[in-house]
């Protein structure tokens, strides 16, 4: 144990204690003058403990038990944390630390209900700790419900459209939870208990039909939280209407709980080989192929929906759904390279998505709007936020200097090496769409003509810009030396039982073409240095003019005419792919709602009918015939 604990408490207990204390303390003192910094301190402590646990795990301890035991109605519930849980826990506590740091400064003071924001953030961390360290299926389900409801509490506080989005989220989350409940019960029926090892023991003698239902229920239940395609409608509005830092936390981590649970159930418990055995008869399509194609569609469709958004937050949250598809696809390739790529993408996504969301909210904090058609030219006013957003979009688009590229490269490589061309093409097409939409994001906010009303805007305060820049810095460092992040991923990969990917500080060495980011980024930076040299040495000194000294076909530019192109940014593309957005899934969802209402009206009519005795008579007669018949044959 890296540090001696007061009594037989393990580090996992300490973490749970910190998280619980944080929830209570922050709910009470959230709005106090130092409340924000208290939050950052507590989340920082949680992060420290997690890192210590990581060192512990790296030192060979298989799993860190917790002394939290619970026996209810004959069920033993235990909580232990293994490598996989630790990996996601690191993301959770890290994301919580950064969002509380963001909230500590001016942003927190401006909010009406900062106390609730702090409280719900800490509550989310606590629930995620419980979920990630679940020792058995029942513990997993209870943790899953806690996480869903904690996220609901976080979404509903903003009022207005947020309540609608939260209500819709709750319905989806509950449907997913019920599917998960059914899955656990199927396991209980087969294995006689909820324990992981009981489930593993019962796997061999499960019928394929049961395995298929188990696969469908687990994938469906956890897929809802990850917003896989048919169930993706709720995530964008829910995550973008949540206020500021909590939205960043939700985006970066909350949807990944679905991925954790999916890995835990499909990979650790059921295992790739059993899944590979599950084939659709005569077609040879495996179960993992179906899920891979769902992940592929989740990669492409939401990305091109994001392309059409005009609200910056919606654009980023739609991309969040798309990126989720990458992670799942990486893992489902089932080779060490693919799994490492998928998990690394989880880590990378958390860093750049959080930086992006925090940057967008810094813009909202200053200009009051996130509508891409109302902004423009803020680069001169908010340069630091621009830098954070720029590094974030390079990461999101998966271009070299940033870490996003490394994980996407590993996913492409894994797909190409395992000869799955169509999936890798879907991955590439997804990246292209991302590049287009992220440029639209940064152009409409920061580039182009500055509006007259935004002329007096100052840079966001340090308490907001610093977390962004640190996150972007992490993104660049792990892009420059991906080995650091890969060693973290190894913990999870080892716990998943998948062979580890041999890697060095710079990247991966493979027979079929390796990647050494130290060289790629090093040469890129060096070459940009050469470019700078050429720029400053060769040409004459540059003279900086203002934005109205611009070529406009001889026309005299002035402030009262807005000379800026941002609305409907890709008209050509919109004309081609516009008609493809028919909103099938929206209509399907609406159909379900109408079905519930119509059947509800039907039962309403039945209950209100004046002819109740007639119903009784009918049922009685049917009952008698049935009784007579059944009784007659019964023993």
């Amino acid at each position, binding site marked *: 144990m890296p540090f001696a604990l007061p009594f037989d408490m393990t580090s996992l207990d300490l973490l749970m204690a910190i998280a619980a204390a944080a929830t209570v303390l922050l709910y009470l003192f959230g709005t106090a003058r130092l409340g924000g910094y208290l939050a950052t301190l507590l989340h920082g402590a949680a992060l420290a403990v997690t890192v210590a646990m990581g060192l512990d795990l790296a030192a060979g301890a298989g799993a860190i038990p917790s002394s939290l035991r619970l026996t209810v109605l004959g069920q033993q519930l235990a909580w232990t944390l293994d490598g996989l849980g630790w990996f996601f826990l690191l993301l959770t506590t890290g994301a919580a630390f950064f969002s509380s740091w963001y909230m500590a400064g001016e942003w927190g003071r401006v909010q009406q209900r900062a106390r609730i924001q702090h409280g719900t953030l800490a509550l989310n961390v606590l629930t995620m700790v419980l979920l990630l360290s679940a020792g058995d299926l029942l513990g997993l389900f209870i943790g899953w419900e806690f996480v869903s409801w904690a996220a609901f509490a976080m979404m509903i506080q903003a009022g207005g459209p947020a309540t609608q989005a939260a209500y819709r989220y709750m319905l989806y989350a509950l449907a997913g939870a019920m599917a998960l409940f059914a899955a656990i019960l199927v396991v209980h029926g087969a294995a006689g208990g909820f324990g992981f090892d009981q489930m593993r023991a019962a796997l061999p003698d499960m019928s394929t039909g049961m395995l298929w239902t188990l696969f469908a229920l687990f994938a469906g239940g956890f897929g809802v939280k990850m917003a896989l395609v048919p169930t993706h409608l709720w995530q964008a509005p829910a995550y973008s209407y949540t206020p500021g830092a909590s939205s960043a936390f939700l985006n970066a981590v909350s949807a990944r709980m679905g991925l954790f649970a999916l890995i835990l159930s499909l990979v650790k418990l059921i295992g790739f080989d059993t899944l590979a055995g599950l084939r659709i008869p005569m077609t040879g399509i495996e179960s993992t192929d179906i899920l891979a194609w769902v992940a592929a569609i989740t990669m492409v469709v939401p990305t091109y929906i994001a392309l059409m958004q005009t609200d910056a937050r919606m654009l980023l949250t739609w991309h969040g759904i798309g990126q989720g598809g990458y992670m799942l696809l990486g893992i489902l390739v089932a080779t060490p390279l693919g799994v490492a790529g998928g998990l690394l993408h989880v880590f990378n996504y958390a860093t750049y998505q959080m930086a992006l969301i925090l940057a967008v909210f810094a813009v909202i904090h200053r200009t009051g709007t996130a509508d891409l058609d109302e902004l423009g030219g803020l680069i*001169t006013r908010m340069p630091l936020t621009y830098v954070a957003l720029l590094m974030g979009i390079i990461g999101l688009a998966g271009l070299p200097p940033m870490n996003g590229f490394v994980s996407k490269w590993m996913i492409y490589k894994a797909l190409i090496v395992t000869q799955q061309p169509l999936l890798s093409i879907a991955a590439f097409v997804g990246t292209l769409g991302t590049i287009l939409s992220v440029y639209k994001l940064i152009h409409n906010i920061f580039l182009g003509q500055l509006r007259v009303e935004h002329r007096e805007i100052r840079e966001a305060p340090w308490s907001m810009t610093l977390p962004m820049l640190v996150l972007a810095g992490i993104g660049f460092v792990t892009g420059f030396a991906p080995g650091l992040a890969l060693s973290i991923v190894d913990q999870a990969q080892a716990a998943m039982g998948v062979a580890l990917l041999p890697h060095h500080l710079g990247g991966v060495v493979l027979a079929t073409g390796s990647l050494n980011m130290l060289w790629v980024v090093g040469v890129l930076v060096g070459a940009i240095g050469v470019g700078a040299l050429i720029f400053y040495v060769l040409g004459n000194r540059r*003279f900086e*003019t*203002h934005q*109205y000294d611009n*070529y406009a076909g001889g026309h*005299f530019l002035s*402030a*009262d005419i807005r000379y800026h192109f941002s609305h409907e940014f890709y008209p050509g593309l919109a004309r081609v792919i516009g008609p493809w957005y028919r909103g099938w899934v929206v209509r399907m969802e609406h159909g379900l709602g109408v079905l519930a209402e119509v059947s509800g009206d039907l039962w309403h009519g039945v209950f209100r009918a004046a002819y109740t005795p007639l119903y009784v008579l009918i049922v009685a007669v049917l009952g008698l015939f049935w009784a007579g018949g059944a009784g007659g044959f019964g023993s």
Partner: protein
Amino acid sequence: MSDTTPVIPDQPEVCRTVDAEERGVWRRVMDRFADHCRARSLFVLHYCTGCGAIELPPTITSRFDMERVGVSPMVTPRQADILLITGYLSVKTLKRVILSYEQMQSPKYVLGFGSCTINGGMYWNSYATVKRLDQYIPADGFIAGCMPRPEAVQQVFLDLMKKIDAGQANAWQDYYLNYDRYLGNQMALFGEEWHTPVDVIAEAEHYGYVGDGTRGRFTEILDRHAAYALRDAPEDYPERGANERLLP
């Protein structure tokens, strides 16, 4: 404004590009090479104001092919070296010509095409046209003729190239050195309130082409009511008063 009579520019007396500080051998070689390349690569902005425009396509296409000597048409003033004004200049067009000229990057050259730019041509007595081009922007060369033929155009180009090669075509410096005179003429025509969004004085100061003629009576008038918008924060120009109404 008391005196509205146009001022006749005197002939530029300087014959060779002599920069302010004395040039080392290495700089002179570089300048020589730069002039050599400048002469052989000229991008032309056809400011087709009048009837002369029709003469330009033949000079560029297969019959006379100016690309042989490195001359090719360019769309925006930013990238152009030569501003070719092909015909009469109405007062309204002159505003656009001056803006285009100021948006060009020096060393830039102006070629008046046809007699209209020299002395007003057939519109010599019209109220609407400008009679002499070089009162408003410094011109490097004129091509006489009421629609001169492509050969004439080629000849003027070749002459200009020789001057550039020799490093003498520096009329553009005159615009910076005697900006006040040009501004006076322009204000005489368009009124005191008028000015282009380009901050010529700042450019002159930036590149060190500030002569005694750069600032004068007219630039003070200019300073009073022109604020170059965004680049200067409002508190830098207290005396200019609120600059909500930035430009005409």
